[in-house]
C-alpha cells in the first residue's frame, strides 16, 4: 500500500503539475500567462471607455479591462478574442458554454448592461465599458438564486450543458417581464436551444420563479 501514496491524497496534483486549463493559457493564449487568479484593477468604467476609444489596437495583444460581476478584470487579449473566450480562458468563468460559437444556440448567454447577449458573437474589446453579468454571480453565499432553484425544482435540465445560458436568458427575461404569460415566455426565451428537450420544465421554472419573486 505504501507504494501507492498518490491514491490516498485527494488533493494530489496532476503529474505534470499543470492543469489542462493552465496549459491552454500558455500554449495558445499568452506568453505572460496569468497563473494567478484574475487581477482586479481599480480602473474606472470611464477610463476603460476612453481607452477603448483611442486609435488602432492590435492585431497583437492589447490591455483589455472588463467589468464582470461588478469587478474590473484585466487581461492582455488580441482584438479577435470574443467575450466568451475571454471569460472562459482568461477569467476562469466557465459557466457560459461554447457550443455553436455562431450566435444560434444560446449556451454562451451572458448579460451586457442587463440584457441577454451571445457572448460568442461579441468581441471582448467591444464589451469594455459595459456591465457584464455571468451565471457565476447568481447564487449568493452558497444559496441558489430563486430562478436556479426553480430549475432544480422543475427538472429543467437533463445533461445540463445548455442550462447556464438558459438561466441567464431566463433571468434577463424575468427582469423585463415580472408577470409573464406562457406566450411571452415562448417568445422571450426563444434564443436558446436544449437538445435534451427540457423546454417544458424551463417554462415551468420561469413561472415558478416569477411567482417566488412576487411573494418575496
Amino acid at each position, binding site marked *: 500500500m505504501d507504494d501507492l501514496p498518490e491514491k490516498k491524497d485527494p488533493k494530489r496534483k496532476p503529474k505534470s503539475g499543470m492543469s489542462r486549463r493552465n496549459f491552454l493559457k500558455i500554449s495558445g493564449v499568452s506568453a505572460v500567462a496569468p497563473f494567478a487568479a484574475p487581477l482586479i484593477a481599480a480602473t474606472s468604467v470611464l477610463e476603460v471607455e476612453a481607452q*477603448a*476609444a483611442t*486609435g*488602432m*489596437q*492590435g*492585431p*497583437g495583444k492589447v490591455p483589455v479591462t472588463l467589468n464582470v460581476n461588478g469587478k474590473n478584470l484585466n487581461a492582455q487579449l*488580441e*482584438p*479577435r478574442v*470574443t467575450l466568451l473566450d475571454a471569460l472562459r480562458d482568461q477569467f476562469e468563468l466557465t459557466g457560459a458554454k461554447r457550443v455553436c*460559437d*455562431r*450566435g*444560434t444556440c*444560446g449556451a454562451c*448567454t451572458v448579460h*451586457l448592461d442587463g*440584457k*441577454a*447577449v*451571445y457572448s460568442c*458573437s*461579441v*468581441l471582448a*474589446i*467591444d464589451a469594455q465599458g459595459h456591465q457584464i453579468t455571468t451565471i457565476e454571480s447568481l447564487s449568493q453565499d452558497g444559496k441558489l438564486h430563486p430562478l436556479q432553484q426553480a430549475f432544480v425544482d422543475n427538472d429543467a435540465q437533463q445533461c445540463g450543458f445548455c442550462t447556464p445560458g438558459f438561466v441567464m*436568458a431566463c433571468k*434577463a*427575461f424575468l427582469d423585463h417581464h415580472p408577470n409573464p404569460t406562457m406566450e411571452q415566455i415562448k*417568445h*422571450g*426565451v*426563444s*434564443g436558446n436551444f436544449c437538445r435534451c428537450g427540457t423546454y417544458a420544465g424551463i417554462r415551468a421554472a420561469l413561472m415558478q420563479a416569477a411567482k417566488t419573486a412576487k411573494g418575496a
Partner: protein
Amino acid sequence: MIPTQFEYVAAKSLDEALSLLGKHKDDAKLLAGGHSLIPAMKLRLAQPQVLIDISRIKDLSYIREEKGQVRIGSMTTHYQIESSDLLRRICPLLPETATHLGDVQVRNKGTIGGSLAHSDPAADWPAAVLALDAEIVVAGPKGERAIKADKFFVDLLTTALEQGEILREVRFNTPQGTVGQSYVKVRHPASGFAVVGVAVNLSVNGGKCQSAGVGITGVAPKAYRASGVEKALQGNALDAKTLSVAAAHASDGVDANTDLFASGEYRRHLAEVYTRRALGTAVSRAK
C-alpha cells in the same frame, strides 16, 4: 473557430469612421452589432485587416419624427425599435418586424443599419423598408446621398453602398390617414431567418386602397418590392377577392431561391399565401 488577426478601432464619430474607411479601404470592415460579421469572420468568409467599430457612435442611434418624416439612425438596435413607443404609435410595422427578427439576444445587439448593409436574402428589415418606400441615407467622402430602398438592394449580399460609404440613416414619410400595416413570415425553425417574409403598408380611403407598399424577403437573392401586388391593389376595394388576385402576383418575374429547406416552387407558393395573409391582416388593422 477563431477569426484571422485584425486591428480594431472604435470610431468616436461618423467623420472619424469615414476617414478611417477612406484610409483602409477594402482592408477594412465596419462592425455594428457583429451578429453577421463575427460569425462570418470565424468561418474566415470575411478576413478584414482592420475592424472599424461604429456601434459606439451615439449620433447614429436614434428614432425620431420630424417634419413629417421618421428617421432612424443606423446603429439603432432591433430591441430599441421593437420597444419604441413612438414607432408603435406611428409606424407599428417596424416594431412588429423587429419582434419577428432573430431572437432576443440578437435583437439586443444587432442594428438595423448592420442588417440592411449586409443585405442577407432572408433578413427581415429589407421587406419592411421596401414596404415603407424608405430612403437609405449613406454618408461618404463626397457627402451624403439618399438611395430609395428598391434601388438599395442590388443582389445577394450586395447593396448600392460604394467603397468608403457608411449607412447613416433610414428615413421615410410618416404614414398618414387610415393606415394598415403587417409583417408575417415563415420562420426557419433553426436560424430564425425568413424562409418567406412579407411586409405590407397600406393607405386606405373610403374602403379603397389609396396606396400600397409590399416588400418581400426570403424568396429571391435580394428582397424586392412586389409591384405586381401593389398595382393590383391600387384604387380597388380591399375585399377578399382583390387581395387574392393581388397576392397571386407576389413572385412575378422573380427567380426564386432553392435550398435544402425549401424549393423555389415552394417559396413561390409561400410568397402568395403569406402575401394574402399579410394583406388581410393589414386591411383588418386599417382603422
